[in-house]
């Protein structure tokens, strides 16, 4: 271990954080802050997803199952029970973690795309449930919340930045720790990892719990940022697609990669707005190009060894 190198890296990450945190002082564009707020929440989704996909080796095509559970649990608590935001967010997160627990069973039994399909179906079922119970959930129209996090753009920016920073730090500590080592090993070859004396189930449960924790937090905070919870923002497959694209074009198995990917995705979408209705298509084309020609993502462009 090169201690100086580790310090360097921590220093740089801190520098990037400080630079970003100073942004509200530099720019008077609340709009930019709004864009970045969305990007930061997406980054949290992406990091949580990557913990499962990149490290634990689980192809989860239903991150919005966890996000949606949390968003709606928190939203319902706020709308119908009138509980304050800071109570609803933990409740939502707990719902997401229960959902994560429910996914562990299939994850242990099924491989790769098959597990992916189960998670996809879980999302579809959640969507159907929202429609069926539209009396409570508001169906396709969505749920209007009584409260929001804060009115201030700067405030929302710092909430999102804070969550992203905490997520990044915690996940980074986890994946760099002995725990992360075992997690990665069990994702790569669960039989061999078992043979080294690790009970893989325990670590898979942990991975799902961590992923659910952060995507749940972000999901609940997202709805309190928007002021509404609707399938279009937290459940539909399009959101999943965004998360997957952000992770992969940023560079999987990399915390900073997920952040880069998410920020790129959102900011590129804004930049390409002059293209009108083709802007989303243009972003997809860009993402596809990255995927085909640099499958290891942006992060590989910055001189990192192939993440095999």
């Amino acid at each position, binding site marked *: 271990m090169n201690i100086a190198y580790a310090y360097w890296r921590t220093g740089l990450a801190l520098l990037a954080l400080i630079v970003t945190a100073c942004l509200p002082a530099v720019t008077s564009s609340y709009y930019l802050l709004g864009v970045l707020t969305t990007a930061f929440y997406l980054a949290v989704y992406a990091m949580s997803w990557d913990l499962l996909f990149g490290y634990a080796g689980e*192809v989860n095509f239903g991150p919005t199952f966890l996000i949606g559970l949390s968003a709606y649990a928190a939203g319902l608590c706020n709308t119908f029970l009138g509980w304050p935001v800071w109570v609803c967010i933990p409740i939502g997160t707990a719902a997401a973690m229960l959902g994560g627990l429910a996914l562990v069973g299939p994850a242990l039994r099924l491989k790769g*795309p098959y597990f992916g*399909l189960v998670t996809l*179906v879980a999302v579809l079922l959640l969507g159907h449930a929202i429609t069926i119970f539209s009396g409570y959930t508001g169906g396709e129209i969505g749920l209007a919340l009584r409260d929001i996090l804060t009115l201030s753009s700067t405030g929302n920016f710092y909430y999102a930045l804070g969550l992203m920073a905490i997520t990044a730090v915690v996940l980074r500590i986890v994946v760099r720790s002995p725990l992360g080592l075992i997690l990665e090993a069990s994702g790569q070859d669960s039989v061999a990892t078992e043979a080294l004396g690790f009970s893989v189930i325990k670590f898979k449960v942990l991975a799902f719990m961590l992923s659910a924790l952060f995507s749940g937090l972000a999901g609940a905070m997202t709805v309190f940022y928007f002021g509404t919870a609707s399938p279009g923002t937290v459940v539909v497959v399009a959101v999943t*697609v965004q998360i997957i694209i952000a992770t992969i074009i940023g560079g999987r198995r990399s915390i900073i990669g997920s952040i880069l990917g998410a920020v790129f995705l959102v900011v590129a979408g804004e930049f390409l707005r002059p293209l009108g209705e083709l802007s*989303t298509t243009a972003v997809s084309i860009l993402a596809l190009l990255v995927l*085909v020609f640099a499958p*290891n993502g942006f992060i590989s462009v910055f001189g990192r060894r192939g993440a095999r």
Partner: protein
Amino acid sequence: MELLLQILISGFIIGAIYALGAAGLTIIFGVSGILNLAHGAIVVLAALVAWYCALQLHMGIYWGGLAGVAAAVVTTYVLYALVVLPLSRSRQMAADELPVFLFVATLLFALILQGLLEWFFGSTPVATPALIDGVIHIGGNTVPLNSVLIGVVAWMVLGGLWLFISFTRLGKAMLAASMSPRGLAIIGYDIGRIHLLVWGLYGLLAGIAGVLLASFIGASSGVAINLTATAFTIVILGGLGNVLGSLAAAYILGFLGTLTAFLIAPSLREIPGLCLLIIILYLRPQGLFGRH
């Protein structure tokens, strides 16, 4: 009795269209091991092009349909040449990660295609004219001749596919490739060409399914994802790579949905299918009719 007959007739037509779409998907998986998420988008493309050519360019329904199928085949080759081939040859990822990358890449392709379709044709649903007008009465049920024709055409195409696979050398080679690509290579077949053939055939089937769909119930860019999901459910239920299994699964799913809509509530139509899928995946991951 009348109700039962209605369920049977309705299930027959819907099942045939489902089967048509899923047959191509499952062949692709059998031969190349690729789960193509752009499926729904390609089906919709065929439907919209057929509609556009038939009505906006006044080419008539038959030429329009042909144009739709041709568009699907061309797009399929574009997908193969620009996305699938380069990724399969890429050395930048571990071999076991390739399926996931292909999965995501086809998903992106679907999004791009969907965006372009929306831009060109708009997102409003459209339906092509009926191929023939009139209705027939079967046991007290009114059935449009067009629906009967669609069911018949779908079955004829499925029959043609069966004939192709069972009785032509190329078709047999294709089937053989899904059992043992290596076996095919050692007897002197160029696997690359077989892949080209399979993707072309897939485009053809998806295109025909799209054109029939446009005539039967209409299509819009928004339904692409649902079409993909349905086709996937069928393919997984039937066992990946198993054409006959897909056929059976298409009918099981078609009848299950129709029965639910008839007997319980139309709004719950999709749910039994999804639950069945989860149960099957859990108990029998190789599908109801999977071989392996």
